[in-house]
């Protein structure tokens, strides 16, 4: 198997081969590092490549597997982390100038869990500054570029992870999603991204954007790989009081169950308004595939969902501004122009505005939960149109905002995945979003896997 073939092998399959000692973790890590060196200068997906450490971890994995078998299904598999997760002894910038020299003493809980599972860290990925934006046009470290078209944005804020996965520069990655920041780059880069239920995954050691909306989740090139990564990170954390007490589960358990008997809700409002025609055609075709695979289609009504974007924006703006207030006063020039403006805007949101936004969160959440009493999952596009051009501003106006189809699920706190479901006429990826009930990631993954099994969109690769 060539080095490039190893780089695109699924993480689950790679882990199986490593456990059987058919593939060497050191050989794979070396191939990944060589590929990063060759391709990443044009993509800018990585802010930090941890070459020596990756090779040392790979050698340790190889030795352990030879001595006593694999720790688990991802032992020895290469990983890239969004640069928002604290990594002990490794610079963690959150994509900012303000944290340019920040070297944490401790790993974030999720990083510690991935280390315990034996993954090999290749480096830290580029992101929108402090995760406060959806383009990944980072003024301090440069924009990440979409492997499908380098003039296009990867989306953000976990855009470096999207680029790295699409280009075969890592096998799995971890992102954060406050207003769509996992699903947007997953959709724009043609990979899989799962925002878990709010509270499912610990956020200790993750730089906050909005305490009420932030989530941590897996990004991968297949649904199985995303499920395995979620297995490794989910579960209670006594050091994070926002983290649910629910025990960890095996999220791969239902992957091959198929869709027979599954009720699939298609929203009447908002999610299909004003779409690019190619996006609409691809998503409606995907819904047809799910029906042919056995899902039963039902209508879903979400009348207040047009207000969700505004409510989430107000909460995010106020909470981000509260967190950043000391830095914004002392060193405002160290922020990029868009993030500084957004942080200033948050100061104008009043207490009444904030509470009304939280009240709207209850209304929107209740509507989603009512729809999910009739349906097991809801389906919708991830993005309304093709990836933006690098430097093109993403509007904050809800009717046309690039994140308008993903942010409502942050407000509702529900699990939602984006899987590749087509290419537009310019050859750019289109994403299908599948939403589930609280803590029912297993059904979301089951539906996504059934779609993946019936199509080959996940296997398409950009020409690099």
């Amino acid at each position, binding site marked *: 198997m060539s080095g490039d073939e190893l780089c695109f092998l699924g993480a689950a399959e790679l882990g199986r081969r490593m456990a059987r000692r058919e593939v060497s973790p050191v050989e794979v890590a070396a191939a990944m590092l060589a590929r990063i060196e060759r391709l990443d200068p044009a993509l800018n997906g990585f802010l930090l490549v941890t070459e020596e450490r990756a090779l040392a971890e790979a050698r340790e994995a190889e030795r352990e597997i030879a001595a006593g078998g694999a720790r688990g299904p991802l032992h020895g598999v290469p990983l890239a982390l969004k640069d928002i997760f604290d990594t002990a002894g490794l610079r963690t910038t959150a994509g900012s100038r303000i944290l340019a020299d920040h070297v944490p003493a401790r790993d974030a809980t999720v990083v510690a869990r991935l280390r315990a599972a034996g993954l090999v860290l290749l480096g830290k990925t580029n992101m929108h500054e402090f995760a406060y934006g959806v383009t990944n046009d980072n003024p301090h470290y440069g924009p990440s570029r979409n492997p499908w078209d380098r003039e296009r944005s990867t989306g953000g804020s976990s855009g470096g992870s999207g680029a790295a996965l699409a280009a075969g520069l890592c096998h799995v990655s971890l992102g954060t999603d406050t207003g769509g920041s996992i699903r947007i780059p997953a959709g724009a880069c043609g990979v899989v991204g799962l925002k878990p*239920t709010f509270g499912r995954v610990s956020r200790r050691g993750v730089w906050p954007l909005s305490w009420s909306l932030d989530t941590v989740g897996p990004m991968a090139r297949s649904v199985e790989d995303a499920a395995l990564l979620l297995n490794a990170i989910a579960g209670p954390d006594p050091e994070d009081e926002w983290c649910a007490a*629910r025990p960890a589960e095996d999220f791969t358990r239902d992957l091959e169950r198929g869709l027979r008997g599954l009720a699939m809700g298609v929203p009447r409002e908002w999610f299909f308004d004003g779409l690019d025609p190619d996006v609409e055609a691809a998503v409606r075709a995907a819904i047809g595939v799910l029906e042919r695979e056995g899902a039963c289609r039902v209508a879903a009504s979400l009348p207040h969902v047009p207000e969700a974007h505004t409510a989430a924006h107000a909460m995010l703006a106020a909470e981000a501004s509260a967190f950043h207030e000391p830095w914004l006063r002392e060193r405002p020039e160290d922020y990029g122009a868009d993030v500084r403006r957004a942080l*200033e805007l948050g*100061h104008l949101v009043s207490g009444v*505005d904030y509470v009304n936004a939280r009240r709207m969160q209850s*209304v929107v959440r209740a509507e989603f939960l009512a729809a999910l009493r009739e349906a097991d999952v809801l389906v919708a596009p991830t993005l309304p149109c093709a990836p933006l051009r690098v430097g093109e501003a993403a509007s904050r106006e809800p009717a046309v905002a690039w994140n308008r189809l993903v942010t409502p699920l942050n407000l509702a706190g529900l699990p939602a995945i984006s899987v590749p479901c087509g290419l537009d006429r310019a050859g750019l990826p289109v994403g299908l979003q599948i939403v589930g009930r609280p803590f029912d990631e297993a059904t979301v993954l089951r539906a996504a896997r059934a779609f993946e099994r019936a199509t080959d969109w996940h296997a398409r690769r950009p020409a690099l």
Partner: protein
Amino acid sequence: MTGKPEIPEDHIIALARRRGLALDPERAAALRPLAESLLGRLARFAEILPREAAPPPLGLFEDREP
């Protein structure tokens, strides 16, 4: 209220100052369209929200499955 409210720049500067943030007129001007849009949309919530709507509990879903 349905249209965007007009928020004069000096009002934005005064509002920010009350909340501890110094803005010069240039920055206030850059902020104005964003503020008019967001605050205008938020102003509608008072009309749209059901009177009985309360904020959700902290954990959102813990031990409260649908």
